[in-house]
């Protein structure tokens, strides 16, 4: 019995240590999550303004910009936002599951989601897929399912800056302009609240007002101002130096900001699912400690009882 008590004590100690670690990770994730959510909210106004401006430029009338060009979809680039580190519950698994489902639905993948009144090129179902990974885990996903993996960005900051995303957006834009890719998608985890996140797949290129809008509306909390109030007729506007320059400046920015938003949301979701996972782990460790303590006390009590019985027995034998 005494040996057992010692073993139990050891286990309690190790469970306590684990609990300390998971508790610390939980708190750290909570703090990081708050920051990430704040950053995601901060980009909101920029994204809204850029989108509105583009809307009002009514660019759909003359879609002669390389970033708006529609082509039959033969090759797709998917930017998959995953985490660098594990221990975050089902975060990565969910992203991969959803992405896989979308990628297998070749019929929808081949379609173009655009406003009416534009000629949609015929769609193909024979589509090649490239994965552009963000986060180490995405490389594993591409390898497992046999997708091409032209690049992985796994050195992103804890707190992503807009500069960090430039290499990703550059690659997407360049690939689209030189016609390597006919469509660029981003797959990320949308942060709804601390407890619920949802994986979304959005079209980045060709720039689609529909997808931009959806992404804008999804941002956490309606803190951003509504700016659509005064939509003055665009004819009254002057363009300096000219309309083309403006559109060419703003289109890549929209791509950047869309990807930036996605990565911020992804970061927020990663931290929050890690927080939840760690909270569960801490709770479990707490339960385990409780059980083990009870067992230890029982063993200890049994040892004492036995000792007393032995002493009593010895005394009885002497008298």
């Amino acid at each position, binding site marked *: 019995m005494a040996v057992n008590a010692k073993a139990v004590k050891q286990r309690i100690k190790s469970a306590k240590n684990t609990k300390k670690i998971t508790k610390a990770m939980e708190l750290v994730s909570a703090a990081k999550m708050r920051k990430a959510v704040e*950053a995601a909210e*901060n*980009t909101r*106004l*920029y*994204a809204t*303004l*850029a989108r509105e*401006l583009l809307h009002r*430029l009514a660019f759909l009338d003359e879609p002669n910009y390389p970033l708006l060009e529609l082509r039959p979809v033969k090759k797709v680039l998917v930017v998959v936002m995953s985490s660098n580190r594990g221990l975050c519950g089902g975060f990565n698994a969910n992203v991969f599951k959803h992405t896989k489902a979308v990628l297998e639905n070749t019929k929808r993948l081949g379609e173009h989601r655009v406003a009416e009144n534009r000629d949609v090129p015929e769609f193909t179902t024979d589509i090649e897929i490239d994965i552009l990974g963000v986060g180490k885990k995405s490389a594993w996903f591409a390898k497992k399912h046999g997708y091409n993996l032209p690049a992985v960005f796994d050195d992103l900051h804890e707190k992503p*800056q*807009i500069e960090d995303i*430039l290499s990703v957006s*550059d690659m997407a*834009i*360049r690939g689209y302009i030189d016609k390597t890719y006919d469509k660029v998608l981003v797959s990320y985890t949308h942060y709804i609240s601390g407890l619920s996140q949802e994986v979304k797949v959005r079209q980045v290129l060709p720039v689609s007002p529909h997808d931009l809008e959806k992404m804008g509306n999804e941002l956490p909390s309606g803190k951003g101002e509504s700016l659509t109030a*005064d939509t*003055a007729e665009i004819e*009254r*506007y*002057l*363009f*300096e*130096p000219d309309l083309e*320059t*403006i559109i060419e*400046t*703003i289109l890549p*920015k929209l791509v*950047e*900001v869309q990807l*930036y938003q996605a990565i911020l949301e992804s970061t927020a979701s990663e931290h929050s699912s890690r927080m939840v996972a760690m909270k569960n782990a801490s709770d479990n460790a707490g339960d385990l400690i409780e059980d083990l303590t009870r067992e230890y006390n029982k063993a200890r009590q049994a040892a004492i009882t036995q000792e007393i019985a032995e002493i009593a027995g010895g005394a009885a034998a002497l008298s």
Partner: protein
Amino acid sequence: MITFTIVTPQGVLYKDSIDKVTIPTQAGAITVYPEHIPVVSALRAGELNIHKGNDVVNLAISTGVVEIRPNSIVYVLADTAERSNEIDVDRAELAKKRAEELFAKEEKMLDIDFARLQAKIEKEIVRSSVGRKYRNV
């Protein structure tokens, strides 16, 4: 008064009602007074001066777009913007030097990298010059 807002992807950097503002655009610097006609213009890296009463706020901004709306509402959408007193001149200088080195080294560069690097050098030059100009004020 102009309702003036500078927005970067990092958030709203400046928001106030002001008297006038000088904005560097690709077609040259423009100064906006209240009741300006609506204009959309592409920015270039440069110095932006906000005048409010007797106060002047100087910022270094990089590329982006400015939108002047009717009713004296002005939005500046910039990649980055920094107040002159927040600029670390030495760091800006270093960053510029680094960018220039990279520029000299990579000869067979893709056009897009070339443009980006050039924009970066321009931005850092502006940062350090704006930072230095108002350092002792």
